[in-house]
């Protein structure tokens, strides 16, 4: 159950860097740097497996890590190096996710994935944000918008642990089950 371990690991690393950055008042900077590191990982899907795999020698891997570290602040540099030394590079994305969760809960910010059938316009987007802010008791809502014509209409909002489903597809599915019953 490597998955479970990864979560525990991510929790510990994220907590360490979060508390360190918080004590030094570098939280915002660290957060932005980590988000861009995550961006690099997600843009290059082969990066994480390469760093934790056996295809490359340790020197070649170190070169890659050095490149990652180049522009970063000391804390992020240290985190990357430490994660690499302890062979935790495959947990890097999970660590950053966990860091983000802590950062969000401190700023009362909620990330929500929004799925709609058509692209949201500005008015609707703001309406949705305001409503969600009330519902989740948050100051800021960060929307991650996706368009999926398959849901036919309405909107599906997914946050960590909750799903608000107002899609036409689900409604039709419910009606179908009711009739079949």
């Amino acid at each position, binding site marked *: *159950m490597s*998955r*479970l371990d990864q*979560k*525990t690991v991510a929790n510990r690393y994220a907590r360490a860097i979060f508390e360190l950055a918080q004590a030094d008042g570098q939280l915002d900077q660290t957060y932005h740097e980590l988000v861009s590191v995550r961006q690099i990982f997600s843009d290059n899907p082969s990066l994480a497996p390469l760093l934790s795999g056996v295809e490359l020698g340790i020197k070649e891997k170190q070169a890659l890590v050095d490149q990652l570290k180049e522009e970063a602040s000391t804390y992020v540099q240290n985190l990357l190096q430490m994660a690499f030394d302890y062979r935790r590079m495959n947990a890097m994305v999970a660590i950053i996710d966990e860091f983000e969760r802590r950062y969000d809960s401190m700023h009362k910010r909620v990330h929500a994935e929004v799925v709609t059938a058509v692209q949201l316009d500005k008015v609707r987007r703001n309406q949705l944000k305001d409503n969600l802010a009330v519902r989740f008791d948050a100051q800021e809502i960060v929307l991650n918008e996706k368009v999926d014509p398959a849901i036919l209409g*309405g909107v599906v909002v*997914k946050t*960590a*642990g*909750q*799903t*608000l*489903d*107002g899609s036409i597809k*689900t409604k039709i599915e419910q009606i179908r*089950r009711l009739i079949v019953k």
Partner: protein
Amino acid sequence: MSIKTEEISSLIKKQLANYQDQISVEETGTVTYVGDGVARADGLENAMAGELLEFENGVYGMAQNLESNDVGIVILGDDTQIREGDTVKRTGRIMEVPVGDALLGRVVDPLGRPIDGLGDISTDKTRPIERKAPGVMERKSVSQPLQTGIKVIDALVPIGRGQRELIIGDRKTGKTSIAIDTIINQKDQDMICIYVAIGQKESTVRSQVETLRKFGALDYTIVVSASASNPAPLLYIAPYAGAAMGEEFMFGGRDVLIIYDDLSKQADAYRELSLILRRPPGREAYPGDIFYTHSRLLERAARLSDDLGGGSMTALPVIQTQAGDVSAYIPTNVISITDGQIFLDADSFYAGQRPAIDAGTSVSRVGGDAQIKAMKKVSGTLRLDIASYNELAAFAQFGSDLDAATKARLDRGERTMEVLKQGLHAPQPVEQQVVTLYALAHNYLDDIPVDDVLRFESELATFMRSNHQDLYDSIKQSGQLPEGNELDKALDSFKEGFQTSDQKQDTQVAQN
């Protein structure tokens, strides 16, 4: 008649004004592992232990392990359509099954869905499958007999309503037959029967159902079947589902008989689940709470106090042993929970002593109070007779010269064992048993050859029914032996007319 258009449209308008689009708000988690009937899910932080969860494809699961990072879920259905990354949502309910009269005569799975192809079960009542057993003040002591119709059980290990009596023995020793015969004998006794088949072959369950149908016993019986092909979680919950169905009748003041056939398989299913859920294994790799699994189930059998309607639920759990080993983990556990056990012996089964009940090790701790007076009188010395016979029989194999007293005891023992034999699916009413055992205890059988004992018994029953039905009725109604020597007279007159096989042959020879 004219349709009042305006009225209707105003009504519709009113309803439409109040119509609000409901969006579903659900707490969800993500499946991170699935396999072997078990799933793990991230999230679901507020899930309760035992809560029903729904997977994306409509399959239900039950939350079992609540851990720091994830939730362990047993899947109550087909797990092949569930994938990693699927969402699981909370339902906020705990597991329930439909209950009520509509289930009688039906065969259902542990979730209460019909599997006999006879259409829907129309009942809107449900009960949670897990329920705390009735407490001390809600019970009263067992006082009414439950007649199994099997002579040796009703005489030696009587069962009372509300009792828990274990049926234990090796494979193929007639455990299920005893259970089925007991159900058949409950006809017209105002008793609801529930037969929970756990981990049995579908074909076996089918033939049990057909047997029950043939004897007209299905009308008051519910069959709950989790067969060998069902996933382990269903086998695990089957007895609890059956108990929930029984409780509905028990709390309605009815008498219920529930048979768990068998709990060894349920223990195996629970062991499988627990190991996959990574709970620490204990003795014989069963999880630590295997004792509680069975004790909380069997505690639900009860005789309710009069305030609660005086209903009862009698439980007959079945346990299979390996090579007669009652000291294995599960048998000792269940023996200690129940109020006695009926031990079936493979050797005597193959020797033709059927039902193969071992009189020495079978006991009933509370049933004696429930036995009718007449039966108590005629069966008083039975256990001792059998014990001394077994002792002597082993000894007599060596020697040939036996004194008259020993020989008499051996002869009596042989006839006792013969009388206790009984055919399959042939339960006898208690009055008939009493008269047979009376004849045995009062030496009417001593000069009948052993081969003729069973014929003597059946002809006696026919004779009594046609000539002395009043005696039968008085035993049945009063529970006492008839006063005076009426029974003796009846037996004397029957014995005069009874011909042993030898005598019959003699007369035939004489006629020729």
